[in-house]
Protein backbone atom coordinates (compact mmCIF):
# COMPACT_ATOMS: atom_id res chain seq x y z
CA UNK A 1 0.00 0.00 0.00
CA UNK A 2 1.23 3.47 -0.81
CA UNK A 3 2.03 5.76 2.08
CA UNK A 4 -0.72 8.34 2.67
CA UNK A 5 0.07 11.66 1.10
CA UNK A 6 0.74 14.50 3.56
CA UNK A 7 -1.56 17.48 3.23
CA UNK A 8 1.43 19.78 2.86
CA UNK A 9 2.96 17.71 0.07
CA UNK A 10 2.46 18.74 -3.55
CA UNK A 11 1.04 16.22 -6.03
CA UNK A 12 3.62 14.07 -7.79
CA UNK A 13 3.10 15.61 -11.24
CA UNK A 14 3.70 19.12 -9.84
CA UNK A 15 6.90 18.04 -8.16
CA UNK A 16 8.12 16.36 -11.31
CA UNK A 17 7.27 19.43 -13.39
CA UNK A 18 9.01 21.88 -11.08
CA UNK A 19 12.11 19.74 -10.74
CA UNK A 20 12.29 19.25 -14.51
CA UNK A 21 11.95 22.98 -15.11
CA UNK A 22 14.76 23.74 -12.67
CA UNK A 23 17.01 21.08 -14.18
CA UNK A 24 16.38 22.26 -17.75
CA UNK A 25 17.03 25.85 -16.76
CA UNK A 26 20.24 24.94 -14.90
CA UNK A 27 21.35 22.81 -17.81
CA UNK A 28 20.83 25.58 -20.35
CA UNK A 29 22.23 28.44 -18.32
CA UNK A 30 24.99 26.78 -16.29
CA UNK A 31 26.00 23.30 -17.33
CA UNK A 32 25.90 23.76 -21.11
CA UNK A 33 28.11 26.89 -21.23
CA UNK A 34 30.51 25.32 -18.75
CA UNK A 35 30.69 22.16 -20.84
CA UNK A 36 31.15 24.31 -23.94
CA UNK A 37 34.17 26.00 -22.38
CA UNK A 38 35.90 22.69 -21.82
CA UNK A 39 34.73 21.28 -25.17
CA UNK A 40 36.09 24.29 -27.07
CA UNK A 41 39.34 24.18 -25.15
CA UNK A 42 39.85 20.52 -26.01
CA UNK A 43 38.52 20.72 -29.58
CA UNK A 44 41.93 20.22 -31.13
CA UNK A 45 43.04 17.80 -28.45
CA UNK A 46 44.71 18.14 -25.11
CA UNK A 47 48.14 19.26 -26.34
CA UNK A 48 47.17 22.60 -27.96
CA UNK A 49 45.19 23.48 -24.81
CA UNK A 50 48.16 22.70 -22.57
CA UNK A 51 50.43 24.66 -24.89
CA UNK A 52 48.13 27.68 -24.61
CA UNK A 53 48.29 27.51 -20.84
CA UNK A 54 52.07 27.02 -20.86
CA UNK A 55 52.50 30.16 -22.96
CA UNK A 56 54.63 32.68 -20.97
CA UNK A 57 51.94 35.37 -21.26
CA UNK A 58 49.32 32.97 -19.94
CA UNK A 59 51.55 31.96 -17.05
CA UNK A 60 52.16 35.63 -16.26
CA UNK A 61 48.38 36.18 -16.26
CA UNK A 62 47.84 33.24 -13.88
CA UNK A 63 50.55 34.57 -11.57
CA UNK A 64 49.12 38.08 -11.59
CA UNK A 65 45.62 36.76 -10.85
CA UNK A 66 46.88 34.68 -7.94
CA UNK A 67 48.97 37.62 -6.66
CA UNK A 68 45.95 39.93 -6.81
CA UNK A 69 43.82 37.45 -4.90
CA UNK A 70 46.61 36.87 -2.40
CA UNK A 71 46.74 40.59 -1.58
CA UNK A 72 43.03 41.33 -1.83
CA UNK A 73 41.68 38.51 0.30
CA UNK A 74 43.82 39.12 3.43
CA UNK A 75 43.15 42.85 3.16
CA UNK A 76 39.43 42.23 3.05
CA UNK A 77 39.61 39.72 5.91
CA UNK A 78 41.14 42.38 8.15
CA UNK A 79 38.84 45.10 6.92
CA UNK A 80 35.74 42.89 7.02
CA UNK A 81 36.40 41.70 10.58
CA UNK A 82 37.05 45.24 11.81
CA UNK A 83 34.04 46.72 10.05
CA UNK A 84 31.67 43.94 11.12
CA UNK A 85 32.91 44.14 14.70
CA UNK A 86 32.44 47.89 14.80
CA UNK A 87 29.01 47.79 13.20
CA UNK A 88 27.56 44.77 14.98
CA UNK A 89 28.93 45.15 18.49
CA UNK A 90 29.10 48.89 19.02
CA UNK A 91 26.93 51.97 18.81
CA UNK A 92 28.47 55.10 17.31
CA UNK A 93 27.32 58.09 15.30
CA UNK A 94 27.55 57.58 11.55
CA UNK A 95 27.02 53.83 11.76
CA UNK A 96 24.37 53.72 9.07
CA UNK A 97 26.61 55.83 6.81
CA UNK A 98 29.39 53.28 7.27
CA UNK A 99 27.04 50.42 6.35
CA UNK A 100 25.98 52.32 3.22
CA UNK A 101 29.62 52.91 2.27
CA UNK A 102 30.42 49.22 2.70
CA UNK A 103 27.59 48.43 0.30
CA UNK A 104 28.71 51.02 -2.25
CA UNK A 105 30.82 48.64 -4.39
CA UNK A 106 27.76 46.40 -4.83
CA UNK A 107 25.73 49.24 -6.28
CA UNK A 108 28.43 50.86 -8.41
CA UNK A 109 29.23 49.35 -11.81
CA UNK A 110 32.74 47.83 -11.77
CA UNK A 111 33.66 49.90 -14.83
CA UNK A 112 32.86 53.06 -12.89
CA UNK A 113 34.95 51.72 -10.01
CA UNK A 114 37.90 51.37 -12.39
CA UNK A 115 37.35 54.83 -13.82
CA UNK A 116 37.40 56.31 -10.31
CA UNK A 117 40.97 55.07 -9.89
CA UNK A 118 42.00 56.34 -13.31
CA UNK A 119 40.54 59.69 -12.38
CA UNK A 120 42.40 59.81 -9.08
CA UNK A 121 45.74 58.17 -9.91
CA UNK A 122 45.88 58.37 -13.73
CA UNK A 123 48.24 60.61 -15.70
CA UNK A 124 45.57 63.29 -16.06
CA UNK A 125 44.14 62.51 -12.60
CA UNK A 126 44.29 64.47 -9.37
CA UNK A 127 47.53 62.93 -8.17
CA UNK A 128 48.88 62.13 -11.66
CA UNK A 129 51.70 64.70 -11.79
CA UNK A 130 52.78 64.03 -8.24
CA UNK A 131 52.93 60.29 -8.87
CA UNK A 132 54.87 60.68 -12.11
CA UNK A 133 57.39 62.98 -10.39
CA UNK A 134 58.01 60.34 -7.80
CA UNK A 135 58.15 57.49 -10.28
CA UNK A 136 55.13 55.68 -8.81
CA UNK A 137 52.96 53.83 -11.28
CA UNK A 138 49.51 52.87 -10.15
CA UNK A 139 47.33 52.93 -13.23
CA UNK A 140 48.33 50.44 -15.95
CA UNK A 141 50.34 48.62 -13.30
CA UNK A 142 49.86 45.99 -10.60
CA UNK A 143 48.91 48.45 -7.76
CA UNK A 144 45.97 49.73 -9.79
CA UNK A 145 44.73 46.21 -10.49
CA UNK A 146 44.95 45.34 -6.79
CA UNK A 147 43.20 48.56 -5.76
CA UNK A 148 40.37 48.05 -8.26
CA UNK A 149 39.94 44.43 -7.12
CA UNK A 150 39.88 45.45 -3.46
CA UNK A 151 37.21 48.04 -4.24
CA UNK A 152 35.01 45.52 -6.01
CA UNK A 153 35.38 42.77 -3.38
CA UNK A 154 35.17 45.16 -0.42
CA UNK A 155 31.69 44.17 0.87
CA UNK A 156 31.93 40.39 0.58
CA UNK A 157 33.41 39.51 3.96
CA UNK A 158 31.94 42.41 5.95
CA UNK A 159 28.45 41.70 4.58
CA UNK A 160 28.80 38.04 5.46
CA UNK A 161 29.87 38.80 9.04
CA UNK A 162 27.64 41.72 10.05
CA UNK A 163 24.31 39.82 10.25
CA UNK A 164 26.03 36.88 11.91
CA UNK A 165 27.63 39.05 14.60
CA UNK A 166 24.42 41.02 15.11
CA UNK A 167 22.47 37.83 15.59
CA UNK A 168 24.92 36.66 18.23
CA UNK A 169 24.48 39.82 20.29
CA UNK A 170 26.98 41.13 22.78
CA UNK A 171 26.35 39.08 25.89
CA UNK A 172 29.26 36.67 25.32
CA UNK A 173 31.58 39.66 24.93
CA UNK A 174 30.12 41.22 28.06
CA UNK A 175 30.62 37.96 29.92
CA UNK A 176 34.27 37.84 28.81
CA UNK A 177 34.92 41.47 29.73
CA UNK A 178 33.20 41.09 33.11
CA UNK A 179 35.62 38.23 33.85
CA UNK A 180 38.58 40.48 33.18
CA UNK A 181 39.36 39.81 29.50
CA UNK A 182 40.77 42.73 27.51
CA UNK A 183 39.05 44.00 24.37
CA UNK A 184 41.60 42.36 22.08
CA UNK A 185 41.55 39.07 23.97
CA UNK A 186 37.74 39.07 23.79
CA UNK A 187 37.86 39.78 20.05
CA UNK A 188 40.25 36.91 19.31
CA UNK A 189 38.98 34.34 21.79
CA UNK A 190 35.25 35.00 21.84
CA UNK A 191 34.04 37.06 18.86
CA UNK A 192 36.19 35.59 16.08
CA UNK A 193 35.70 31.87 16.88
CA UNK A 194 31.95 32.42 16.79
CA UNK A 195 32.07 33.71 13.23
CA UNK A 196 34.82 31.52 11.79
CA UNK A 197 32.50 29.62 9.43
CA UNK A 198 30.94 32.81 8.15
CA UNK A 199 34.43 34.25 7.74
CA UNK A 200 35.64 31.27 5.70
CA UNK A 201 32.55 31.46 3.54
CA UNK A 202 33.15 35.17 2.98
CA UNK A 203 36.80 34.48 2.11
CA UNK A 204 35.77 31.98 -0.56
CA UNK A 205 33.25 34.36 -2.14
CA UNK A 206 35.74 37.20 -2.00
CA UNK A 207 38.45 35.01 -3.54
CA UNK A 208 36.17 33.87 -6.37
CA UNK A 209 35.31 37.44 -7.25
CA UNK A 210 38.92 38.65 -6.90
CA UNK A 211 40.10 36.06 -9.43
CA UNK A 212 37.19 36.57 -11.78
CA UNK A 213 36.83 40.36 -11.81
CA UNK A 214 36.88 41.79 -15.32
CA UNK A 215 35.28 45.25 -15.59
CA UNK A 216 37.14 47.30 -13.01
CA UNK A 217 40.45 45.60 -13.70
CA UNK A 218 40.03 46.02 -17.45
CA UNK A 219 39.83 49.81 -17.05
CA UNK A 220 42.97 50.19 -14.92
CA UNK A 221 45.10 47.41 -16.36
CA UNK A 222 46.16 48.74 -19.75
CA UNK A 223 46.22 45.15 -21.10
CA UNK A 224 49.99 44.89 -21.28
CA UNK A 225 50.74 41.28 -22.10
CA UNK A 226 52.82 39.43 -19.58
CA UNK A 227 52.72 42.43 -17.26
CA UNK A 228 49.24 43.70 -16.41
CA UNK A 229 46.98 41.02 -17.84
CA UNK A 230 44.97 38.98 -15.39
CA UNK A 231 43.37 35.73 -16.46
CA UNK A 232 39.97 37.18 -17.43
CA UNK A 233 41.71 39.91 -19.46
CA UNK A 234 44.00 37.38 -21.10
CA UNK A 235 40.97 35.31 -22.13
CA UNK A 236 39.46 38.36 -23.79
CA UNK A 237 42.64 39.24 -25.69
CA UNK A 238 43.08 35.71 -27.00
CA UNK A 239 39.45 35.56 -28.01
CA UNK A 240 39.65 38.85 -29.85
CA UNK A 241 42.68 37.51 -31.72
CA UNK A 242 40.61 34.49 -32.84
CA UNK A 243 42.82 32.16 -30.79
CA UNK A 244 39.76 30.24 -29.63
CA UNK A 245 41.62 27.21 -28.31
CA UNK A 246 43.92 29.45 -26.27
CA UNK A 247 41.05 31.59 -24.98
CA UNK A 248 38.98 28.61 -23.94
CA UNK A 249 41.96 26.80 -22.43
CA UNK A 250 42.68 29.74 -20.11
CA UNK A 251 38.97 30.13 -19.47
CA UNK A 252 38.77 26.46 -18.55
CA UNK A 253 41.62 26.95 -16.08
CA UNK A 254 39.72 29.89 -14.55
CA UNK A 255 36.62 27.71 -14.36
CA UNK A 256 38.62 25.01 -12.60
CA UNK A 257 39.74 27.55 -9.98
CA UNK A 258 36.10 28.58 -9.51
CA UNK A 259 34.99 24.96 -9.24
CA UNK A 260 37.63 24.26 -6.59
CA UNK A 261 36.28 27.28 -4.68
CA UNK A 262 32.72 26.01 -4.98
CA UNK A 263 33.66 22.52 -3.84
CA UNK A 264 35.40 24.03 -0.80
CA UNK A 265 32.29 26.10 -0.09
CA UNK A 266 30.04 23.04 -0.27
CA UNK A 267 32.41 21.09 1.94
CA UNK A 268 32.17 23.90 4.49
CA UNK A 269 28.40 23.91 4.36
CA UNK A 270 28.34 20.19 5.00
CA UNK A 271 30.69 20.66 7.94
CA UNK A 272 28.85 23.65 9.35
CA UNK A 273 25.98 21.96 11.24
CA UNK A 274 28.55 20.22 13.42
CA UNK A 275 30.59 23.37 13.87
CA UNK A 276 29.10 24.12 17.26
CA UNK A 277 30.15 20.78 18.65
CA UNK A 278 33.69 20.89 17.44
CA UNK A 279 36.48 22.32 19.46
CA UNK A 280 38.86 23.62 16.85
Amino acid at each position, binding site marked *: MAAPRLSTEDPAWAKALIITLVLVFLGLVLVLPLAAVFAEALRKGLQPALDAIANPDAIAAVKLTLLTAAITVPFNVVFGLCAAWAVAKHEFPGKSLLITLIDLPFSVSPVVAGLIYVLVFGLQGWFGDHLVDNGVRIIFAVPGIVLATIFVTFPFIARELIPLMQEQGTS*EEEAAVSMGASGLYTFWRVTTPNVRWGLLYGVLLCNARAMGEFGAVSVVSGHIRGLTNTMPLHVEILYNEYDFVGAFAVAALLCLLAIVTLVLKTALEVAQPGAGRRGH
Partner: protein
Amino acid sequence: MTISIRSVEKKFGRYPALNKIGLEIADGELLALLGPSGSGKTTLLRVIAGLEFPDAGQVLFHDQDVTFASAAARRVGFVFQQYALFKHMTVAKNIAFGLDVRKGKDKPSRAEITRRVDELLRLVELEGLGGRYPSQLSGGQRQRVALSRALAVQPSVLLLDEPFGALDATVRKSLRRELRRVHDATGVTTIFVTHDQEEALDLADRVAILNQGVIEQVGTPAQVHDQPISPFVCGFVGEANRFEGGVLNGRFTAGSVVLPAARVADGKAVAFVRPHDLVLDADGFAVQVNRVHVQGALATVDGVTLTGQRIEVTVSRDQADQFTGAVKLSARRAHVFPG
Protein backbone atom coordinates in the same frame (compact mmCIF):
# COMPACT_ATOMS: atom_id res chain seq x y z
CA MET B 1 30.50 42.81 50.53
CA THR B 2 27.98 45.51 51.30
CA ILE B 3 26.65 47.46 48.33
CA SER B 4 25.18 50.95 48.46
CA ILE B 5 23.30 52.49 45.59
CA ARG B 6 22.76 56.21 46.02
CA SER B 7 20.30 58.23 43.90
CA VAL B 8 21.29 56.44 40.73
CA GLU B 9 19.74 57.78 37.53
CA LYS B 10 19.94 56.36 34.02
CA LYS B 11 18.21 57.48 30.86
CA PHE B 12 18.02 55.70 27.51
CA GLY B 13 17.45 58.56 25.12
CA ARG B 14 14.57 60.39 26.73
CA TYR B 15 13.20 57.36 28.51
CA PRO B 16 14.20 57.30 32.19
CA ALA B 17 15.10 53.72 33.06
CA LEU B 18 16.19 54.47 36.62
CA ASN B 19 14.95 57.42 38.62
CA LYS B 20 16.89 58.30 41.78
CA ILE B 21 17.30 54.73 42.97
CA GLY B 22 18.63 54.19 46.49
CA LEU B 23 19.28 50.72 47.88
CA GLU B 24 21.48 49.15 50.56
CA ILE B 25 22.47 45.50 50.24
CA ALA B 26 23.96 43.76 53.26
CA ASP B 27 26.97 41.46 53.19
CA GLY B 28 26.04 37.89 52.29
CA GLU B 29 22.46 38.81 51.49
CA LEU B 30 20.35 37.21 48.77
CA LEU B 31 18.30 40.01 47.25
CA ALA B 32 15.69 39.86 44.49
CA LEU B 33 14.98 42.76 42.15
CA LEU B 34 11.36 42.18 41.24
CA GLY B 35 9.31 44.11 38.74
CA PRO B 36 7.38 43.96 35.48
CA SER B 37 9.26 44.27 32.19
CA GLY B 38 10.44 47.82 31.59
CA SER B 39 10.61 48.56 35.31
CA GLY B 40 14.38 49.11 35.19
CA LYS B 41 15.39 46.03 37.18
CA THR B 42 17.84 44.70 34.58
CA THR B 43 19.31 48.17 34.06
CA LEU B 44 19.89 48.46 37.81
CA LEU B 45 21.60 45.06 37.85
CA ARG B 46 23.84 46.10 34.94
CA VAL B 47 24.71 49.35 36.71
CA ILE B 48 25.72 47.35 39.78
CA ALA B 49 27.76 45.04 37.54
CA GLY B 50 29.55 47.86 35.74
CA LEU B 51 28.17 46.83 32.36
CA GLU B 52 26.26 50.11 32.29
CA PHE B 53 27.26 53.44 33.82
CA PRO B 54 24.69 55.69 35.50
CA ASP B 55 24.03 59.29 34.41
CA ALA B 56 23.99 60.41 38.03
CA GLY B 57 24.41 58.93 41.48
CA GLN B 58 26.90 56.57 43.07
CA VAL B 59 27.52 52.87 43.44
CA LEU B 60 29.58 51.89 46.47
CA PHE B 61 31.11 48.48 47.13
CA HIS B 62 32.07 48.28 50.78
CA ASP B 63 32.32 52.11 51.08
CA GLN B 64 34.49 52.30 47.98
CA ASP B 65 33.13 54.31 45.06
CA VAL B 66 33.00 52.01 42.01
CA THR B 67 30.44 54.01 40.01
CA PHE B 68 32.65 54.11 36.92
CA ALA B 69 34.87 51.10 37.59
CA SER B 70 34.82 48.33 34.98
CA ALA B 71 33.01 45.08 35.63
CA ALA B 72 36.33 43.27 35.93
CA ALA B 73 37.69 45.75 38.47
CA ARG B 74 34.61 45.24 40.62
CA ARG B 75 35.09 41.47 40.61
CA VAL B 76 31.48 40.71 39.92
CA GLY B 77 30.20 37.36 38.75
CA PHE B 78 27.44 37.87 36.19
CA VAL B 79 25.04 35.21 34.97
CA PHE B 80 23.35 36.32 31.77
CA GLN B 81 19.76 35.67 30.85
CA GLN B 82 20.61 33.28 28.01
CA TYR B 83 23.80 32.24 29.91
CA ALA B 84 26.17 33.59 27.21
CA LEU B 85 28.35 30.49 27.41
CA PHE B 86 31.24 30.39 24.94
CA LYS B 87 29.92 27.92 22.39
CA HIS B 88 33.31 26.92 21.01
CA MET B 89 34.80 26.10 24.43
CA THR B 90 34.26 23.06 26.60
CA VAL B 91 32.45 23.38 29.91
CA ALA B 92 35.78 23.26 31.75
CA LYS B 93 37.26 25.96 29.50
CA ASN B 94 34.18 28.10 30.02
CA ILE B 95 34.49 27.85 33.79
CA ALA B 96 38.23 28.47 33.69
CA PHE B 97 37.90 31.54 31.43
CA GLY B 98 38.05 34.10 34.23
CA LEU B 99 41.22 32.46 35.58
CA ASP B 100 42.81 31.89 32.15
CA VAL B 101 42.64 35.58 31.25
CA ARG B 102 44.69 36.61 34.26
CA LYS B 103 48.25 37.65 33.67
CA GLY B 104 51.57 37.32 35.45
CA LYS B 105 51.60 36.25 39.06
CA ASP B 106 47.83 36.67 39.42
CA LYS B 107 47.33 33.74 37.08
CA PRO B 108 46.94 30.45 38.93
CA SER B 109 48.97 27.46 37.77
CA ARG B 110 47.37 25.03 35.39
CA ALA B 111 46.98 22.45 38.16
CA GLU B 112 45.36 25.07 40.39
CA ILE B 113 42.89 26.02 37.65
CA THR B 114 42.00 22.37 37.03
CA ARG B 115 41.47 21.84 40.74
CA ARG B 116 39.24 24.91 40.96
CA VAL B 117 37.19 23.87 37.92
CA ASP B 118 36.64 20.40 39.39
CA GLU B 119 35.60 21.92 42.69
CA LEU B 120 33.05 24.18 40.97
CA LEU B 121 31.71 21.32 38.84
CA ARG B 122 31.19 19.39 42.05
CA LEU B 123 29.47 22.37 43.68
CA VAL B 124 26.86 22.55 40.91
CA GLU B 125 26.70 18.75 40.59
CA LEU B 126 28.07 18.50 37.07
CA GLU B 127 31.04 16.23 37.78
CA GLY B 128 32.40 14.52 34.68
CA LEU B 129 30.80 16.94 32.22
CA GLY B 130 33.84 19.24 31.96
CA GLY B 131 34.75 17.92 28.51
CA ARG B 132 31.38 18.61 26.89
CA TYR B 133 30.39 21.57 24.78
CA PRO B 134 27.49 23.84 25.80
CA SER B 135 25.36 22.55 22.88
CA GLN B 136 25.55 19.06 24.41
CA LEU B 137 23.95 20.17 27.68
CA SER B 138 20.35 20.65 28.77
CA GLY B 139 19.05 24.11 29.65
CA GLY B 140 19.36 23.46 33.38
CA GLN B 141 22.92 22.18 33.00
CA ARG B 142 23.90 25.24 30.96
CA GLN B 143 22.52 27.43 33.70
CA ARG B 144 24.68 25.62 36.24
CA VAL B 145 27.75 26.05 34.05
CA ALA B 146 27.02 29.78 33.79
CA LEU B 147 26.69 29.92 37.56
CA SER B 148 29.97 28.15 38.21
CA ARG B 149 31.75 30.23 35.55
CA ALA B 150 30.60 33.35 37.40
CA LEU B 151 31.78 31.88 40.72
CA ALA B 152 35.20 30.83 39.39
CA VAL B 153 36.72 34.27 39.83
CA GLN B 154 35.59 34.26 43.48
CA PRO B 155 33.47 37.32 42.91
CA SER B 156 32.71 39.83 45.63
CA VAL B 157 29.13 39.84 44.42
CA LEU B 158 27.12 37.46 42.26
CA LEU B 159 24.59 39.00 39.87
CA LEU B 160 22.00 37.01 37.95
CA ASP B 161 19.72 38.34 35.22
CA GLU B 162 16.47 36.33 35.09
CA PRO B 163 18.44 33.19 35.94
CA PHE B 164 15.53 30.80 35.53
CA GLY B 165 13.66 32.60 32.77
CA ALA B 166 14.59 30.19 29.98
CA LEU B 167 13.78 26.99 31.86
CA ASP B 168 10.64 24.92 32.21
CA ALA B 169 8.71 24.90 35.46
CA THR B 170 10.08 21.76 37.13
CA VAL B 171 13.73 22.49 36.34
CA ARG B 172 13.15 26.04 37.50
CA LYS B 173 12.02 24.91 40.91
CA SER B 174 14.95 22.58 41.52
CA LEU B 175 17.45 25.19 40.31
CA ARG B 176 15.97 27.70 42.73
CA ARG B 177 16.87 25.36 45.58
CA GLU B 178 20.25 24.89 43.93
CA LEU B 179 20.98 28.63 43.84
CA ARG B 180 19.94 28.97 47.47
CA ARG B 181 22.24 26.08 48.40
CA VAL B 182 25.17 27.52 46.43
CA HIS B 183 24.56 30.93 47.98
CA ASP B 184 24.52 29.47 51.49
CA ALA B 185 27.66 27.41 50.76
CA THR B 186 29.68 30.32 49.37
CA GLY B 187 28.17 33.16 51.37
CA VAL B 188 28.64 35.53 48.45
CA THR B 189 26.36 38.58 48.30
CA THR B 190 23.86 37.75 45.56
CA ILE B 191 21.40 39.87 43.60
CA PHE B 192 19.05 38.41 41.03
CA VAL B 193 16.50 39.94 38.72
CA THR B 194 13.12 38.35 38.14
CA HIS B 195 9.63 39.22 36.99
CA ASP B 196 8.21 36.16 38.74
CA GLN B 197 6.98 37.18 42.20
CA GLU B 198 6.70 33.59 43.36
CA GLU B 199 10.37 33.05 42.55
CA ALA B 200 11.41 36.22 44.37
CA LEU B 201 9.37 35.44 47.50
CA ASP B 202 10.50 31.82 47.55
CA LEU B 203 14.22 32.41 47.15
CA ALA B 204 15.28 35.82 48.42
CA ASP B 205 16.14 37.13 51.90
CA ARG B 206 14.81 40.49 50.82
CA VAL B 207 12.87 41.69 47.80
CA ALA B 208 13.14 45.10 46.14
CA ILE B 209 10.10 45.86 44.00
CA LEU B 210 10.66 48.17 41.06
CA ASN B 211 8.11 49.97 38.97
CA GLN B 212 8.84 52.51 36.23
CA GLY B 213 12.41 53.10 37.35
CA VAL B 214 11.54 53.60 41.01
CA ILE B 215 11.88 51.25 43.97
CA GLU B 216 8.39 50.93 45.43
CA GLN B 217 9.27 48.83 48.45
CA VAL B 218 12.14 46.86 49.93
CA GLY B 219 11.52 44.20 52.53
CA THR B 220 11.48 40.56 53.46
CA PRO B 221 9.13 38.36 51.40
CA ALA B 222 6.66 38.37 54.32
CA GLN B 223 6.79 42.17 54.63
CA VAL B 224 6.15 42.93 50.97
CA HIS B 225 3.37 40.37 50.88
CA ASP B 226 1.63 41.21 54.15
CA GLN B 227 2.37 44.93 54.47
CA PRO B 228 2.49 46.34 50.93
CA ILE B 229 3.03 50.08 51.03
CA SER B 230 1.52 50.93 47.64
CA PRO B 231 -1.28 49.72 45.39
CA PHE B 232 1.32 48.62 42.86
CA VAL B 233 3.13 46.34 45.32
CA CYS B 234 -0.15 44.96 46.57
CA GLY B 235 -1.32 44.15 43.06
CA PHE B 236 2.04 42.80 41.87
CA VAL B 237 3.02 40.63 44.84
CA GLY B 238 0.68 37.78 45.62
CA GLU B 239 -2.90 37.32 44.49
CA ALA B 240 -5.46 40.02 45.30
CA ASN B 241 -9.04 41.05 44.64
CA ARG B 242 -9.08 44.70 43.65
CA PHE B 243 -11.95 47.06 44.45
CA GLU B 244 -12.36 50.72 43.52
CA GLY B 245 -14.57 52.73 45.81
CA GLY B 246 -14.48 55.24 48.63
CA VAL B 247 -13.70 55.52 52.34
CA LEU B 248 -16.05 57.11 54.83
CA ASN B 249 -15.54 57.02 58.62
CA GLY B 250 -13.06 54.14 58.54
CA ARG B 251 -15.13 51.95 56.21
CA PHE B 252 -14.34 51.24 52.58
CA THR B 253 -17.34 50.74 50.30
CA ALA B 254 -17.39 49.62 46.68
CA GLY B 255 -20.90 48.69 45.54
CA SER B 256 -22.11 46.03 47.94
CA VAL B 257 -18.61 45.30 49.26
CA VAL B 258 -17.75 46.78 52.63
CA LEU B 259 -14.23 46.48 54.08
CA PRO B 260 -12.52 47.80 57.22
CA ALA B 261 -10.26 50.79 56.55
CA ALA B 262 -9.28 52.08 59.95
CA ARG B 263 -6.43 54.48 59.25
CA VAL B 264 -7.41 55.78 55.82
CA ALA B 265 -8.66 59.32 55.26
CA ASP B 266 -12.11 59.82 53.74
CA GLY B 267 -12.34 60.05 49.97
CA LYS B 268 -11.73 57.93 46.88
CA ALA B 269 -9.75 54.77 47.54
CA VAL B 270 -8.64 51.46 46.11
CA ALA B 271 -8.70 48.29 48.18
CA PHE B 272 -7.01 44.90 47.85
CA VAL B 273 -8.07 41.72 49.60
CA ARG B 274 -6.00 38.52 49.41
CA PRO B 275 -8.14 35.52 48.35
CA HIS B 276 -7.23 33.71 51.58
CA ASP B 277 -8.30 36.71 53.73
CA LEU B 278 -11.96 36.30 52.75
CA VAL B 279 -14.05 34.21 55.19
CA LEU B 280 -17.67 33.18 55.56
CA ASP B 281 -19.49 35.64 57.80
CA ALA B 282 -23.26 36.00 58.30
CA ASP B 283 -22.85 39.78 58.67
CA GLY B 284 -20.74 40.11 55.51
CA PHE B 285 -21.51 41.13 51.93
CA ALA B 286 -23.37 38.79 49.58
CA VAL B 287 -21.52 36.80 46.92
CA GLN B 288 -22.96 34.41 44.35
CA VAL B 289 -20.68 31.36 43.93
CA ASN B 290 -20.10 30.41 40.28
CA ARG B 291 -17.52 27.68 40.50
CA VAL B 292 -15.31 25.89 43.00
CA HIS B 293 -12.11 24.28 41.77
CA VAL B 294 -9.75 22.21 43.79
CA GLN B 295 -5.99 22.73 43.72
CA GLY B 296 -4.31 20.22 45.99
CA ALA B 297 -4.96 21.04 49.63
CA LEU B 298 -6.73 24.28 48.72
CA ALA B 299 -9.89 25.17 46.86
CA THR B 300 -10.45 28.32 44.84
CA VAL B 301 -13.92 29.81 44.69
CA ASP B 302 -14.96 32.05 41.80
CA GLY B 303 -17.85 34.30 42.70
CA VAL B 304 -19.51 37.55 41.85
CA THR B 305 -20.91 40.28 44.14
CA LEU B 306 -24.39 41.79 43.82
CA THR B 307 -22.93 44.68 41.83
CA GLY B 308 -21.21 42.35 39.40
CA GLN B 309 -17.66 42.54 40.73
CA ARG B 310 -15.79 39.25 40.27
CA ILE B 311 -14.22 37.84 43.39
CA GLU B 312 -11.80 35.02 44.17
CA VAL B 313 -11.60 33.20 47.51
CA THR B 314 -9.05 30.58 48.57
CA VAL B 315 -10.08 28.17 51.32
CA SER B 316 -8.90 24.82 52.61
CA ARG B 317 -10.42 21.77 50.92
CA ASP B 318 -12.67 20.81 53.86
CA GLN B 319 -14.36 24.23 53.75
CA ALA B 320 -15.09 24.03 50.05
CA ASP B 321 -18.47 22.31 50.55
CA GLN B 322 -19.85 25.40 52.29
CA PHE B 323 -19.45 27.50 49.16
CA THR B 324 -22.63 26.87 47.19
CA GLY B 325 -25.22 29.26 45.87
CA ALA B 326 -25.35 32.57 47.72
CA VAL B 327 -22.91 33.09 50.61
CA LYS B 328 -21.94 36.00 52.78
CA LEU B 329 -18.28 36.97 53.13
CA SER B 330 -16.18 39.42 55.05
CA ALA B 331 -12.47 40.25 54.90
CA ARG B 332 -10.18 39.45 57.81
CA ARG B 333 -7.76 41.94 56.39
CA ALA B 334 -7.84 44.50 53.59
CA HIS B 335 -5.19 46.82 52.16
CA VAL B 336 -6.80 50.15 51.43
CA PHE B 337 -4.94 52.97 49.70
CA PRO B 338 -6.22 56.49 49.05
CA GLY B 339 -6.55 56.96 45.35
